[in-house]
């Protein structure tokens, strides 16, 4: 008891006991965190600054920014950034709009809520690889259903998987389909937190539905909405599975035209064994994610007034 410093705040259990046993409880988790999370970050940071690096011998040469220069000038990386931005800037807004609409509709149902929720959530639990295989054939230029359905509207058959201008569109469509489930569930959870008294009050006041949506639902949903936006954007920046499953892992479509940032990192490391370039790209990717996380913190402080 003499070791106890007077004035130290008691912990919530009122158990201000300095105990070495704590480390025993923490050891397994922190061993894994240290070896497989912290160490790789440090090492990746280091590798990214080498001009060349052989991982088997852990020998690097030429310390500097040249790998970053290479990656940033690499047309493939620029394409990866462009494609990722398309997925983020086009795919995410569409996903969110559809998810919000579906959630609002589902939430307004008096019966059958559970059925729709169950169906809309299926993509979240099913393997992206398996679904990607199906999408590959649905997008097929000859026997795919997408072109077949479009033909009824007089649209000529498109080469969704082989036309370099269209590959990123197909991938984006797949990410939208794949991402809806999670966002619908989050929106539904947010909607269910809104006290029905507000709607009863609005009804008594004779508020028209459109105003109910903009003046009651959206403001009260704003914290969920921004959370979903940020989570979706970060998630979209990590897009990789959809590309990998629609193509074969050796390239992201013809001329790597559907490449994304994470796919670029994987490709650099696995197919080309250029660890230092992969690391430099990973660091750039990390900076983007960190910036987005900071933006999230800022937004949630600045704009979210209702919880």
């Amino acid at each position: 008891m003499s070791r106890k410093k007077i004035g130290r705040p008691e912990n919530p259990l009122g158990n201000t006991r300095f105990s070495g046993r704590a480390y025993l409880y923490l050891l397994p988790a922190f061993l894994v965190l240290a070896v497989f999370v912290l160490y790789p970050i440090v090492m990746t940071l280091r590798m990214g600054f080498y001009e060349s690096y052989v991982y088997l011998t852990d020998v690097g040469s030429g310390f500097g920014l040249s790998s970053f220069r290479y990656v940033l000038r690499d047309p493939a990386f620029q394409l990866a950034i462009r494609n990722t931005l398309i997925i983020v800037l086009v795919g995410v807004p569409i996903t969110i709009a559809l998810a919000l609409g579906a959630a609002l509709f589902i939430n307004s149902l008096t019966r059958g809520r559970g059925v729709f929720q169950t169906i809309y959530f299926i993509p979240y639990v099913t393997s992206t690889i398996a679904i990607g295989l199906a999408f590959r054939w649905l997008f097929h230029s000859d026997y795919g259903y997408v072109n077949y359905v479009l033909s009824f509207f007089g649209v000529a058959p498109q080469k969704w998987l082989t036309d370099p201008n269209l590959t990123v569109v197909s991938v984006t469509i797949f990410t939208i389909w794949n991402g809806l489930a999670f966002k619908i569930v989050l929106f539904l959870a947010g909607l269910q937190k809104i006290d029905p008294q507000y709607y009863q009050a609005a009804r008594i006041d004779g508020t028209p539905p459109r105003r109910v949506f903009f003046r009651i639902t959206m403001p009260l949903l704003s914290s969920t909405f921004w959370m979903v936006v940020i989570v979706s954007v970060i998630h979209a920046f990590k897009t990789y599975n959809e590309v990998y499953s629609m193509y074969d892992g050796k390239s992201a479509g013809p001329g790597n035209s559907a490449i994304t940032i994470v796919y670029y990192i994987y490709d650099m490391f696995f197919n080309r064994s250029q660890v230092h370039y992969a690391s430099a790209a990973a660091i750039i990717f990390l900076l983007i994610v960190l910036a987005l996380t900071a933006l999230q913190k800022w937004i949630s402080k600045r704009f979210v007034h209702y919880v």
Partner: protein
Amino acid sequence: MQRRIGQSIKLILLILGAFLMMFPFIWMLATSLKTLPEATAIPPIMFPETPQFGNYLEALQVAPFGLYLRNSILVAGIATLLTLALTVLAAYAFTIYEFRGKTVMFFLCLATMMIPSELLIIQNFITISKLHWVNTFQGIIIPTLASGFYIYMMREYFMQIPSVLYKAAKVDGCGDFRYLMRIMLPMNKNAIATIGILTFISQWNSFIWPLMVAKDDSHRVMAIGLLHFRDAVSSQVNLQMAGATIVILPMLIFYLVFRKQIIEGVSRGGIKG
């Protein structure tokens, strides 16, 4: 009246949406039962004339899906149990003890939440190569076990248990580990189920890491096995879909059985994208 029309439009849109969400699955199942000419007909045919269940037998002969299933259950199951164990122990230490470096260590946990796991694969692959863990289950499982987010989430739940129970248990002669097992865990059943479900699903569907580590069938999980199967049957789309259906089915059944808990768990632990 206007309300009724509005409701009907909503319902029609929802049914249309549900159809679009289901269509890839329906098509997948239908195609898995087609003959090859049916599957590659132009214009496409939706349903086969006679269901070709033989496609499944053929698929099972080409690739050992039973083995893949076993591996998936093994990997996702063990990884989930170990993740829970590590998470609970660490969160418990952060809840009941004071120790040197507590603030720093907790901050580290929070900081790892911001690190995309895709960033780690490069060095982690190098690490497990050096450990000779390539093509082993421990190589697939162990690097994924610790999650700062889950530790943080679990601790939030633990902190809600009134401290007076801890005092009462002390007086009742209950030690710290026993308190964890007998009081904390039973009282946080829901939180543990949530984390368990989230971990299990993400482990089951994860593939970039298992793809890198597994080199032969005896270590391939279902998603990775499917990729190899796809290459083996090349353009036989009906067989590909039979394989895809086999891969999706177990998780779909698991989902339909536990859908309430799964949806609830996902919306509760939702912040993790």
